[in-house]
Every structure is written in structure tokens, then in C-alpha cells.
């Protein structure tokens, strides 16, 4: 019960951080998608795609609601990246260490760029969407950094949740 509440609170807090902190304090539109997709990829790599799927969908939908975007778009990208992370990490045998962070950061960064492109395409019938090539280095670096931070924090969070779920808690 308490772990479910903690998970739900985490989902809401992540979305609020996106809408009221990252989108407000920084002018870059890429930071929040990068953080969101880092969470999705990290969950998929640590718990497996099937177990992570409900959480990934829920986080994506809540983020869409909080950040005033099209409902379903962030969630769809999160699910796609979560699946791709599991699939490619096994194919390329990059399931541990530095290579995992570089691989996941690349995936997250490129996913964020693709997300911005598709969002532009869905919203801009009057003109061709802009491919944000200039943001590629920023996307890659922020992807690697964000994935590292998020995966460490999520790991700690899961440890804390398993303590909450244990019979000795409280």
C-alpha cells in the first residue's frame, strides 16, 4: 500500500518537475523529454519491458497532462524507447557498465529529438516541421547525464520501496 502510494507520488512529482521546473527555469525544450525517457529506459532495463510497461505508460500519460501536450504522445515515445532499450541492449550486449550509459543516453537523446520533431509535425499543418539537428550534441550529453542520475535515483528508490514492503518496516 505504502509502496503504491510512493510510486504514484513519484510519477506526479516527476511530471510537476517537468512542467514547473524544467520547462520554466530552462529555455531548452529538450530537458523534460530527456528526463522522462531516461525514466522509461531505466525502468525497462532494470525491471524488464513487460513489468515496466504499466509504470511507463502511467508516467508518460501523467507527463502529457502536466506539460499541456497531446495526451498519449510522450507515453507512446516512452513505451517505444522502453522496448527499444531492452531489445537493443541484448542485441548489442551492452547490459552493464559505461557502454550501457552511453547507449541509453544516445537512445534517450535521439528519442527526445524525434519526439520534438513528431510533436511539431502533428501541430504544424501550415509549415514543415523543423528537424532540431542543432540540439543533437545537447540531446546526447543530457541523455547520458540524465540517464546516469535517473538510474541511480531509481535504484535507490526501488531499494527504499522494498524496505517499505518488508514486514519489518515501521
Amino acid at each position, binding site marked *: 500500500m505504502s509502496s503504491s502510494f510512493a510510486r504514484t507520488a513519484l510519477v*506526479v512529482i516527476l511530471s*510537476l*518537475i517537468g*512542467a*514547473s*521546473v524544467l*520547462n*520554466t*527555469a*530552462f*529555455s531548452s*525544450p529538450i530537458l523534460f523529454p530527456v528526463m522522462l525517457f531516461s525514466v522509461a529506459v531505466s525502468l525497462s532495463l532494470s525491471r524488464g*519491458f*513487460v513489468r515496466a*510497461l504499466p509504470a511507463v*505508460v502511467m508516467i*508518460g500519460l*501523467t507527463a502529457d*497532462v*502536466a*506539460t*499541456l*501536450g*497531446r*495526451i*498519449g*504522445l510522450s*507515453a*507512446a515515445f516512452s*513505451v*517505444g524507447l522502453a*522496448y527499444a532499450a*531492452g531489445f537493443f541492449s541484448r542485441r548489442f550486449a551492452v547490459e552493464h557498465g559505461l557502454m550501457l550509459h552511453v547507449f541509453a543516453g544516445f537512445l534517450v537523446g535521439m528519442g527526445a529529438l524525434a519526439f*520534438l520533431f*513528431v*510533436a*511539431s*509535425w*502533428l*501541430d*504544424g499543418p*501550415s*509549415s514543415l*516541421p*523543423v528537424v532540431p539537428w542543432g540540439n543533437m550534441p545537447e540531446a546526447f550529453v543530457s541523455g547520458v547525464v540524465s540517464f546516469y542520475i535517473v538510474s541511480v535515483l531509481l535504484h535507490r528508490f526501488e531499494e527504499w520501496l522494498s524496505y517499505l514492503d518488508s514486514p519489518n518496516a515501521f
Partner: protein
Amino acid sequence: MDPNGLSHSKFFRAIAVLAVLFALAWWDPSPFGTFLRGTFHTVFLPVEKVFASVSFGFRDLREFLSSIGDLKRENERLAEENVRLTAENAGLAFLRDENETLRKSIGLEIRKRFDLLSTEVVASGCEGERGFVVIDRGSMQGVQAGMSAVVGEGVLIGIVDEVYPASARVALVTNSESALGGVTAGNGTKGIVRGDRGLGISYGMVLQSDPLTQGDKVMTSGAGGTVPSGLLIGTVSSIRDSGDRLFREASILSPADFGKLRFLFLIRKEQSV
């Protein structure tokens, strides 16, 4: 379980969920979205206020720290400019007094012309071409859809498009979906003001025969009745022919920084002058 079967099951599960989510995003159901956004931003408004306040503080600190290196150069430049401006100031004093008198007599002061409601930004979304902000006033404070949001001395920022009980969503004029009537101050050239990919503002549908020059100020025309006339949108920065060469279009530079919005004023109604 067969590993291939598991793998295929995962693949089809991913495809099925993706199809549903992309269909939802494509459809973009407005009442459903409004309800969800309204509920979320009403329930979590207090938390959003705290987060936004912290992030504005952080942004100010970051800007202050990044400006320290430029302070010496800026100080020297300002000292020189101060000498020049002191000389200019004497000449301008007379014109300023005259201008002030004229402004007051025609009621251009924003606070005198409109009944304003002050609001603070608590969240923003910058996904793709759509620019939105969430403000901390809603239907309980009398906010209605269609109200104009301004900053400073009447610079139009956007229009309220969704209203929740304690908050509201403002679609910025840079939003690709926004369009309103504009007119240039002085020569009265009419056109349509549109958001340009969430990054800027364009001024289109201007007749080839109408005068339009760089530096012209574009104001709201009041056409349609939703947005009051005479609100500043920005200054014409570059002019080009439209794709079909039937019209001219221009880029508009707004004096407001859309990335740093914090306090906005909503126009409740126009005061009788």
C-alpha cells in the same frame, strides 16, 4: 515458456500499446484533455506554485552568476553611455512631458484603459509548435476563455484557451495554432498575426499595395472582438513575399521574452475612458 513466444508476445504488446497511444495523440480529444489537465492543475496547483517559485529563483540566480563576468565591461560601457544620455536627456525632457500628457489624454496607459487581473505562471509546456503556460488564476477568480494576457505596458502575450477552477491555460501568440487580426501603427496596414512554430510570430496576408516597413509596430486590430484593439504585439523585423507572391509577410519581434514569463495580466474588461 518458449523464449521466442515471450519475445513475440513482448513485441505485439508493445505494438498494441503504441498503436493505442499514438491514436490518442493523433485524435487529441479536447474535452477529455481539458478535463484531465483541469483536474491535475487544480489538485496540484499549490505544489506547482512552490516548484515554480523555486525554479524562478534558480533561474534568476543562474542569470546573475552568468552575468558576473560581463559586469566590468558592462560598467565601462554604461559609464560612457551615461555621459551621452545625460546630454540627450535634457533635450528629451520637454518631449517626454508632452508625450506623457498625450498618453494620458487618449487613455493609453494600460492600467487605466483596462481592468486587469494579475497572475503568475506556475507551469509551462513547450512541446513542438505549441506554446502554453499555466497561470494561477481560474474560473473561481473570474477568468474566462478568450481573455487576453499582457505584460508591461500592454504587450500581448497570449489568449486564455482553457479555464480550470483555480488555474487556466494561456495559448501564447507564438503558438502555431494562434491567429488574430493585426494592424500597423501609423500606416494602418492590416494583416494576420500567427505563431511561428512556437518560436516566433509572423505577420501575413498583407496586401502587396499596403505599406509595410521594417520597424513598424504591429498592434491588435480588435477584429473579431475577442482581443481588444491597440495592444502591442511587436515590431516588424524582416519582410518577404508570401509563397504565392500574392501577399507579403513579415517576422515580428516581440519586446517580451516568452522564455522568461512570470507575471501576466489578464484583461477583464475595457474601462470606459
